[in-house]
């Protein structure tokens, strides 16, 4: 997932005419190393992975055999791909929406002056810095069926009579991974939204106040319009990131119980490196790519406007 967003106009460098060719050569020379590496570890592997979707490539086959849409037919007949797709969309929508709502609230809080604000701002980035396995452990421990804190709290307040093994139920596991991923990405979202709020001209707020605007009005009609571009980019970025999510889900639930939290990334990894059916995994990858291409295109278009 990417984080950088920019809206500044690119500078058109004034250059003496005769130097244009030398400039172009230096420019290409500088970009060459990155392009070579990019093609070797990103572009080629990507295209090659998509190509493999049309081959039968399992532990049983000595050489990959071209089978056209065979893998896709098998995916459809297995009947799992639709479920995986739905699980992925549910995860992405819930995690992105929750992260956005809470991240926005947190950004508004951090934008106000209070004692210790600098420290709170710094500390609140912590969830985002922790290794994903650690995040998974934290939440698995909080949600533990026997000794987890959530159970202890709910039992104390009489909400539950018996401890619940949250991660062993379908909806509990989904809620768990969504909570963990939300927790992990709130700092990032609020950092971006806070940067947006900080650039809101004070005069605009003051002018609205003079007109008698309340807090809600200031938020809805002054801050929100100002944040809009940031929000648009952030939602695309967040959705792309959640669509990629593997680590926390895998470490927390392994995609289970049964397939309740098996998102695309978990399915690809499982098909490719546990079942060793590279062709079928690649076919899942193609479906995944078709899902991702919409939001990614939006992002690309936004970015290229500035180049």
């Amino acid at each position, binding site marked *: *997932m990417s*984080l*950088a*967003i*920019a809206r*500044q106009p*690119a*500078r058109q460098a004034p*250059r003496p005419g005769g130097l*244009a060719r030398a*400039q*172009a050569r*230096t420019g290409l020379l*500088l970009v060459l190393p*990155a392009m070579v590496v990019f093609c070797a*570890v*990103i*572009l080629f*592997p*990507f295209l*090659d*992975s*998509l190509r*493999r979707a049309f081959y039968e490539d399992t532990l049983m086959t000595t050489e990959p055999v071209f089978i056209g849409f065979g893998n896709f037919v098998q995916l459809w007949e297995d009947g799992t791909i639709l479920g995986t797709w739905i699980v992925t969309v549910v995860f992405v929508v819930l995690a992105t929406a929750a992260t956005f709502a809470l991240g926005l*609230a*947190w950004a*508004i809080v951090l934008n106000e002056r209070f004692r210790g604000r600098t420290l709170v701002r710094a*500390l*609140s980035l*912590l*969830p985002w*810095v*922790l*290794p994903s*396995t*650690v995040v998974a*452990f*934290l939440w698995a421990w909080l949600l533990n069926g*026997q*000794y987890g804190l959530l159970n*202890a709290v709910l*039992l104390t307040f009489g909400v539950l009579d018996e401890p619940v093994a949250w991660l062993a139920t379908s909806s509990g596991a989904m809620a768990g991974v969504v909570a963990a991923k939300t927790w992990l990405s709130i700092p990032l979202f609020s950092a*971006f939204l806070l940067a947006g*709020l900080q650039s*809101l001209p004070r005069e605009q707020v003051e002018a609205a106040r003079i007109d008698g605007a309340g807090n809600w009005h200031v938020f809805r009609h002054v*801050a929100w319009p100002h944040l809009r*571009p*940031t929000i648009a980019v952030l939602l695309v970025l967040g959705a792309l990131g959640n669509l990629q999510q*593997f*680590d926390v889900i895998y470490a927390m639930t392994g995609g289970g119980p049964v397939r309740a939290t098996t998102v695309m*990334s978990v399915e*690809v*990894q499982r098909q490719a*490196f546990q079942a060793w059916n590279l062709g079928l995994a690649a076919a899942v*990858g193609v479906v995944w*790519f078709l899902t991702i291409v919409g939001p*990614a295109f939006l*992002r*690309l278009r936004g970015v290229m406007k500035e*180049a």
Partner: protein
Amino acid sequence: MLDFASRSARWVFAATFLVLAAFLGFPVFWMVSTAFKPTAEIFVRFPTLLPAAPTLDNFRGVLGQGDLPLWLTNSLLTAGGAALLTTVLATLAAHSFARFRYRGRKPLMALMISAQMFPFAVLLISLYPLLQAAGLLDTRLGLTIAYIVFALPTGTYMLFSYFVRLPEELMEAARIDGASELGILLRVVLPVSVPGLVTVGLYSFMWAWNDLLYAMTLVTSPELRTVGPGLLMSQLGEMRQDWGAAMAASLVASLPVVIAFALVQRWFVQGLTAGAVKG
């Protein structure tokens, strides 16, 4: 931005602050608290907030007999290597995109940025046989190279945003003084771009340090294991259901990147959100 003249505004603000601060902070607090608890205090239905009899046993356990130091070393080498490679490559490419005009510049940039939609797990399907063919499967070097995937496109774009805002006069002055293009990059652009470089380096480092997917797929030898899969497999294996040890190991595993982050936090957030908003 908000007005706290009314009592209800103060209450809503305080409540929002407390709820979100608790949501964000409590899991970390719980990790630390559990890590210092003796086993008898961990496996109870109604645990106490703080350890009644704090102990270092969990840490002694994971640092003494466990492979944690080994995993940390491996993570440090691969993530550090990836951060270095990514930053160097991204710097050259971003400087080229920001300062030079040539045919194919925009398509190359678009290609690089569009790579963000290539799913990491899908790339693995091809990276695995590729590294195998190169004899780099199950090596630190192979994992380091694979980690370039995570941050090269984003890093290039972040540095592009940074470089493009540097005043052109800076470079023109050096050029008139007869500096070479490389000299301009090294002596003019880089010294004023430290926050951007740190941001990209740390971004790349964190992705690699936090990674589980690539590490567990591309490396199988126990002695080459990194922190992510190391923790996970020990939890599935011998440390199973030993939550005290799991939390202590988690705490230790988090420290390096938390410390690195604390040192450069200010620059990092600036670099990351730079240009996210107009103005």
